């Protein structure tokens, strides 16, 4: 089991959804790895394809009418693309746990939280009711819900937003997953609650050695929790690097632009936030050449606007920018130094 191969290998994954404009490619040849005992963040804005990538990887786009056009997703040596639902159901919730943005809509209001966690354990592990309940209480205890034994018998509405997210996390780790997929798990929470959830995820990861694939739009959260970062824009990976390299020396104008647009960074640098002009590219009208080119202040006519730009290695990471080498020092200088 403990091999050198990554736990999750996404290769050239393309996903399409139907629209009045025909099939739209909303994930376009996306590749990345999640290593063992690793925390990888996929970061992007709305419409970047970050959530769909994750859903496609675990077979959740077909029920929504989407299709996997091409590509491969290997999880712990098994190919997930093309796998039947029965087999996928055995993996989802067991070896792969999930947490979503809105804990209230992911929990059933008619059952106690203990019953819901126990159900997952019974289904995947075939434990008796009593043992599954014990396991549920243990899971609630691991996410630091005080007096877990009595709270397990309460219903979701009796928990606050932050506590519900803890319940969701308890459910997702109850079967000791190898991979935890967290899709914007703190976005709906207040910042003081977010800080505690991030702390909890870090602790659970450290103690269990599971890997975490964390999807977010917030570069602050990325800096807080990630070891490796994948930046998506316009359905493609535009940059991928270790967290220190990404923040210390961003190679893609979009990455450095996002940083410059953040209020905290602007405050640090003592100027107004620098907006990225224009709006996020849409799947029915990708610009030709680099998909970021209409918004890029470093755009060069021809170089950036005619042919598709490949994702190429640079400085230990990968970047999709025709001018990456010459912009290296410019973008590096634009970075914050603490």
């Amino acid at each position, binding site marked *: 089991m403990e091999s050198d191969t990554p736990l999750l290998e996404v290769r050239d994954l393309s996903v399409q959804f139907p629209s009045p404009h025909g099939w739209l490619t909303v994930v376009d040849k996306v590749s990345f790895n999640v290593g063992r005992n690793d925390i990888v963040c996929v970061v992007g804005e709305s419409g970047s394809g970050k959530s769909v990538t994750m859903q496609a990887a675990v077979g959740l786009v077909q029920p929504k009418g989407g299709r996997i056009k091409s590509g491969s997703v290997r999880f712990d040596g098994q190919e997930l693309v093309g796998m039947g639902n029965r087999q996928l159901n055995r993996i989802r919730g067991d070896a792969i746990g999930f947490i979503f943005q809105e804990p209230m809509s992911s929990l059933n209001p008619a059952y106690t939280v203990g019953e819901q966690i126990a159900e997952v354990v019974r289904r995947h592990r075939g434990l008796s009711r009593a043992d599954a309940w014990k396991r549920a209480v243990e899971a609630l205890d691991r996410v630091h819900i005080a007096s877990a034994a009595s709270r397990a018998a309460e219903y979701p509405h009796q928990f*606050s937003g932050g506590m519900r997210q803890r319940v969701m996390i308890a459910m997702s780790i109850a079967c000791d997953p190898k991979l935890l997929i967290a899709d914007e798990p703190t976005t709906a929470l207040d*910042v003081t609650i977010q*800080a505690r959830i991030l702390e909890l995820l870090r602790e659970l990861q450290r103690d269990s050695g599971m890997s975490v694939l964390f999807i977010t739009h*917030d570069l602050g959260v990325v800096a807080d929790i990630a070891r490796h970062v994948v930046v998506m824009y316009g359905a493609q990976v535009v940059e991928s690097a270790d967290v220190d390299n990404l923040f210390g020396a961003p190679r893609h104008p979009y990455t450095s632009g996002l940083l410059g647009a953040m*209020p905290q960074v602007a405050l640090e640098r003592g100027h*107004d936030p620098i907006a990225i002009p224009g*709006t996020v590219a849409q799947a029915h009208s990708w610009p030709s050449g680099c998909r970021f080119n209409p*918004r890029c202040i470093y755009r060069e006519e021809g170089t950036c606007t005619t042919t598709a730009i490949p994702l190429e290695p640079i400085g230990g990471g990968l970047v999709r920018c025709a001018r990456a080498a010459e912009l290296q020092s410019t973008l590096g200088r634009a970075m914050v130094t603490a």
Partner: protein
Amino acid sequence: MSNKPCLRVENLHVSYDVGSTGFLGKRRKLHAVNDVSLEIGAGETLGLVGESGSGKSTAGLAILRLIDVASGTVRLGETDVAGATRSELRALRRRMQMVFQDPYSSLNPSMTIAQLLEEPLIIHADIPKDERKAMIGRMLESVGLHAGYAARYPHEFSGGQRQRIAIARAMMLHPELVVLDEPVSALDVSTQSQIMNLLKKIQGDSGTAFLLVAHDLSVVRLMSPRVAVMYLGEIVETGPSGRVYDQPAHPYTAALISAVPFPDPERQRRVNRIILGGDLPSPMSPPSGCRFRTRCPFVMDICSKEAPPKVAVEGGGLASCHLHAHGPKLGGRSLNDFIRDKQIVSAA
């Protein structure tokens, strides 16, 4: 305050009726806003910061009389808002407007942009039709949209563009005050700053006062020279934004600032954070004494016995915290020296 106040709020209380405790039970009230006072000068922005349940949005709604005021005074210029009759309110509406958080639900999807922007003109002002059309074109351009967009519907626009439309609609009648309720938090980061810069520009041109309700202190710091921080219905700290952001004098403010992750992994690893334990207490039965005491990492005996007095803070503003007179006796200094080099986790 540099000039005469546009908005003056004194001892504002807002409560919601939350039904009774069982059959023939006592009617219960939820005090969402408790004794809030604030002032905004003409053309100025005041930031009102807090998390969910702090009462910041309720305060904004009550100031516009979109919900009822339980007690206290609200004055727009010389006019009494809190006590205004229905017909007086109607006249007041054109002088104060609101921009909501979610531009996907705040614009009527069956109306064109022209109709959306024209509506306030028809209701509140007697302006000929062709003049109205010219005004709409000018307003669209001033919020950075083509005048030609007037014939389109809201669904044809992105979130950032919709928020521009919502701002245009609020500004149509040149109001004296606009309450901005989380105007950028539903937007992508790359467009957030576009909207922040637009709001600043519009204020510079129009001289409208803004009450900026937001959870993100860094957004408020960028947008407004002064800030008030709310917790569980009360203002716990006020002051110049720079002072409050860099040198908080209330533990809640300090926790709020330290909880926001900074986009620098190296700094995130070594930063000293204040992690608040517990949950927001129920506003139905707020804690005795200081309302923050159940989550405060520095809680003392006195905190449950007496409500903290407002203390003047070095560098401007007020903070309601016993630490200034008891314990470390900060005497109006910021908490920074006191909390330096500590990883602070509150109990609860």
